């Protein structure tokens, strides 16, 4: 069953067309990656699916809910991690996770907060104010926040942005494990190795259009190259 179905999606900002009639679908439990250069429309697509931006035309269905009509229901099922997200600076890491958990099932709050703390892995610093965190610590806190709610669909915009190699590896492992437990993941990334390692399927986006879509291995075989980076270069050049 498709967790996400996007059909002829168009998004315009005034006269500028950022997304030009794209269609794709993501199966439940699948990790689907959007890859493309800056300004290709990846973040716009993620923001639309996260119920932040309106659709100019086309339709999106998320876990059986129509995005245009049931955005409130969809917000209960998803978790969105923006690329340059922040947290409330006057709160401690723990208080921030608690604040977010309070929007969900009251019975699940303690478990959610514990899970968030475990994913963030900030040690004693979880009780320090967020404005004392490094960029990497902040990102780990936010990944913890995004994954602790056990979302049906996790929408992650550059999930390992700002993290060092070790932390990034841990986060990738966590995303894999989360998907194996049934969470559908839609992510965007500039890191081709990350995409190759994480994603079951990918869509290459250029100038608001999907120019190629498929499993990383299949695409590499199709273009007779050794990694997704080369696939990307070939596709964009052609």
């Amino acid at each position, binding site marked *: 069953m498709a967790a996400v179905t996007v059909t002829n999606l168009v998004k315009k*900002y*005034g*006269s500028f067309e950022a997304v030009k009639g794209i269609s794709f679908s993501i199966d439940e439990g699948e990790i689907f990656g959007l890859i493309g250069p800056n300004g290709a429309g990846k973040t716009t697509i993620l*923001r639309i699916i*996260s*119920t*932040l*931006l*309106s659709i100019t035309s086309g339709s999106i269905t998320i876990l059986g809910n129509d995005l245009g009509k049931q955005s*409130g229901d969809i*917000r*209960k099922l*998803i*978790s*969105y991690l*923006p690329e*340059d*997200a*922040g*947290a*409330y*600076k006057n709160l401690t890491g723990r208080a921030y996770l608690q604040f*977010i958990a309070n*929007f*969900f099932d009251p019975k699940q709050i303690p478990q959610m907060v514990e899970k968030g703390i475990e994913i963030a892995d900030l040690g004693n610093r979880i009780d320090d104010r967020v404005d004392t965190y490094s960029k990497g610590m902040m990102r780990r806190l*936010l990944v913890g*926040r995004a994954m602790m709610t056990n979302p049906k669909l996790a929408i992650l915009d550059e999930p390992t942005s700002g993290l060092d190699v070790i932390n990034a590896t841990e986060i990738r492992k966590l995303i894999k494990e989360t998907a194996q437990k049934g969470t559908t993941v839609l992510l965007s990334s500039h890191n081709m190795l990350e995409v190759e390692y994480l994603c079951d399927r990918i869509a290459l986006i250029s100038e608001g259009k999907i120019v190629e879509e498929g499993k990383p291995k299949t695409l590499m075989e199709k273009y007779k190259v050794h990694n997704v980076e080369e696939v990307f270069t070939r596709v964009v050049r052609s």
Partner: protein
Amino acid sequence: MSGLGNIIKKEIRELLTPATFLPIIIIALIFGTMGNSIQGIQEQAQTPPVIGVINEENTTFSTMASTILHDHAKVIYNSTSNADIQIGLETLKEKNGVALIVIPANFTEQILREEPGNIKVYWIMKGAGLMDTISSSVFESLIAYINTNISKELIGGNSSVNASFILSPTKRVETTYFKNREFSGLSPNTISGMLSSQSLLIPIVMMMIIIMAGSIVITSMALEKENKTLETLLTLPVKRTSIVTGKIVAAAVIGLLLAVIYMIGMGYYFAGFQISAGVNLATYGLVLTSEDFIWIGISLFITLIAGLSLCMLLGTFAKNYKSAQTLTFPITMLALIPMFLTMFADFDTLPLPLQIFTFAIPFSHPMMAPRALLFHDYPLVIGGIVYVVIFAAVTISIVVWVFKTDRLLTGSTSKFKWIKGLKRRRF
């Protein structure tokens, strides 16, 4: 291009935004309108006062007083009989007069006996603002002029006369008619002073709450954007109305708390300057009942919600903390304008355009409520509350609508395209 020129060009481009200019343009228009209206009031006040004169005798000093009044005021009613007082007052009310002066039959005789000659003044008071009492102040200077002339005459005729009597050869016996009530022994200036001191607290409280709580709301929205927390908040399972209401209520609580702290200090400050006028308004029935205080409380609360909704709407325009500071300016001005307007003139005596303008500002209503309630003007108070409720409901609806649109995240939309086009052409 030189380094300086390059920096100037970049700075101007950054500052040339609707958020910078719109508040200033709106304030300029508001002040222009206010200036024209206040100028109208001043011109009206500078014209000779319109009065009526009843001179019951035709002797030296009464003729002198009557001549001065005729020379320096516009006398629209003349009589020689004390029995015509009611007719005189009716005539003056019809023709926008200020006062009816009665010079009694024994005026000269009293003065010659070295007793202050009574001049009876029946004031027709229209409003309790500073501008409203200008005409009566002008007229009071005429009475002083009459005194001076009588003093000169007395000194010229008899140098042995009592010095303290010569300095005050007349005595005013005053009655003021204001909003269908009679105030014996009080002049419009005394009544105005008493009412001003009574109704000064509410406007200051209102202004402080709005400025403080408004600033909190606008800054909160700006910080959500600057700290990149807004996107996360908007994807959580919480209704947009809950986000808007939550921010407004929290700001209202903090604003009230700050205002209480501020008012404790202000209370001591005012107490240090308070001078008793020696007149108790309660003896004239001018007392706010507990029911009146409930009306004032409702008016204050509803206006606070309306004001904070307006701040929330402005906050959606704020891109960061810096721009939030600019956006608090129009709110501060909107709180200050009714405070000064109600200080200068009564709502009833304002020109119609200014009345509409004052009524349209939600903050005006709790400021006008105490005085209106003193004179049982319930339609103004209840009408104001109804208006502010509608204003708040409409503003909150607009804010919730903005929260549901792309505007909150994408900033300026196609509505401001002409400004962007202008900037591109210039640079």
